[in-house]
């Protein structure tokens, strides 16, 4: 047992503080938008030039091919939203005005290094805004499955894939739980439903400090 993709998005949505400006990366992080309550006081920013991203546009009357998110999906704009060019959008990111960025990951190292744009030997899709977000957002959360489809750990001692940015990730949310990146490496914050300590330790390709995990079920897996 572990969290589904929807549950991962839901868990990530709970990380976003009221009164913050949040940028969501493409892929799974984009699904967080649907999990943020409308009255949560969270302003969603999309790198292609919109602050105040609303729910997806699905009804024919809502669709406008010139109102899209960074994944090129049609969205709506909330009241109070604003539009700007790409230089201003990235000034928001690079100037430290975005409070939280939630990004996908291919690898996260125990130092907080992030790799999420290229796998050696495979076709490069591109960089997009990931390097800017990783370098510029005040807090970077990685949202990713704990392992690759082939079962290899994504949380590692050192990234072997090309880096997006060094020492940028503060917290990792996976299908198996929530981990912080600390001075001592990965530290367990929370286990996903039905996941044992042994399972998350075995799935992590770096040492995992479980000593002060506050949300562990004490009846289950005291290590």
């Amino acid at each position, binding site marked *: 047992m572990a969290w589904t993709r*929807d549950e991962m*998005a839901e868990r990530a949505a709970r990380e976003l503080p009221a009164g913050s400006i949040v940028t969501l990366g493409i892929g799974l992080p984009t*699904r967080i938008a*649907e*999990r943020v309550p409308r009255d949560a006081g969270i302003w969603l920013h*999309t*790198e*292609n*030039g*919109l602050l105040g991203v609303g729910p*997806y*546009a*699905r009804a024919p009357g809502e*669709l*406008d*091919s*010139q*109102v*899209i998110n960074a*994944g*090129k*999906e*049609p*969205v709506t*704009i909330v009241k109070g939203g604003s*539009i*700007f*060019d*790409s*230089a201003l*959008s*990235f000034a928001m*990111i*690079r100037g430290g005005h975005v409070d939280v960025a939630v990004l996908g990951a291919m690898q996260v190292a125990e130092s907080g290094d992030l790799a999420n744009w*290229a796998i050696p030997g495979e*076709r*490069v*899709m*591109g*960089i*997009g*805004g*990931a*390097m*800017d977000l990783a*370098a*510029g957002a005040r807090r970077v959360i990685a949202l990713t499955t704990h392992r690759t489809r082939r079962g290899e750990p994504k949380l590692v001692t050192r990234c072997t894939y*090309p*880096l*997006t*940015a*060094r020492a940028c990730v503060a917290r990792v949310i996976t299908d198996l739980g929530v981990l912080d990146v600390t001075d001592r490496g990965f530290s367990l914050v929370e286990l996903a439903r039905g996941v044992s300590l042994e399972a998350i330790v075995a799935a992590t390709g770096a040492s995992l400090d479980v000593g002060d995990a506050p949300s562990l079920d004490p009846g289950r897996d005291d290590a």
Partner: protein
Amino acid sequence: MSLARASSSPPGRHLAKVRASVEEALEGLRDGARVMVGGFGLSGNAEALIEGVLERGVRELTLITNNAGTPGRGIFRWFEAGIVRRFVGCYVGPNALVARAIEARTIEVELVPQGTFAERIRAAGAGIAGFYTRTGVGTAIASGKETRVFRGETYLLEEALFADMALVRARRADRFGNLRFHRTARNFSPLMCMAAATSVVEVDELVPEGDIDPDDVHLPGAFVHRLLEVREHEDPLERLAPEPDRG
């Protein structure tokens, strides 16, 4: 690129910007030109101008645009036609034709972080030769670039990105070239108009001067050289929203 100062007063560049046809709008575009194209995927494309470049038959272009396109449509057709020699942008995407061309080295690619891409273009239009940014420090992007420490943090030197011509789309323009864009179609377009020696704007609607309130101008006419009114556009939706979450 240097700024030549005029010794006498040549005719101003801001007369008679409105062009009657795509051919006139693209006049002077030559083989080997560096061309910026606005838009984010298929959103906010200068559809007629993009098509017009194909018909013009120019080749060996350096294409400067955010992403390499969606198969069969828009800018992707430049790749299909083999007229792109070099692509400078942020995202190739799941674009097998371009990926194969990269592997076969028939196309050169310069991948740029999107914020650096936007700022390099803006810098070119603002007379700024280069700038330092934290984006890309410690990554493959930093290879061969100067770094410098400011206030204890390492920054990377990035240089301005110029073009011979920019092809962008706007919702409305007056005859001086004051522009208004629509929603997220603004993206890189105003910056590209600033950076290009000749900026060509495909507008949905041309209005008389004065119809756009000065406070409502997104890009002043100083950065706009040619205008082409095109009332009909395909404006396809590149993607639909994903299925709603279950439960």
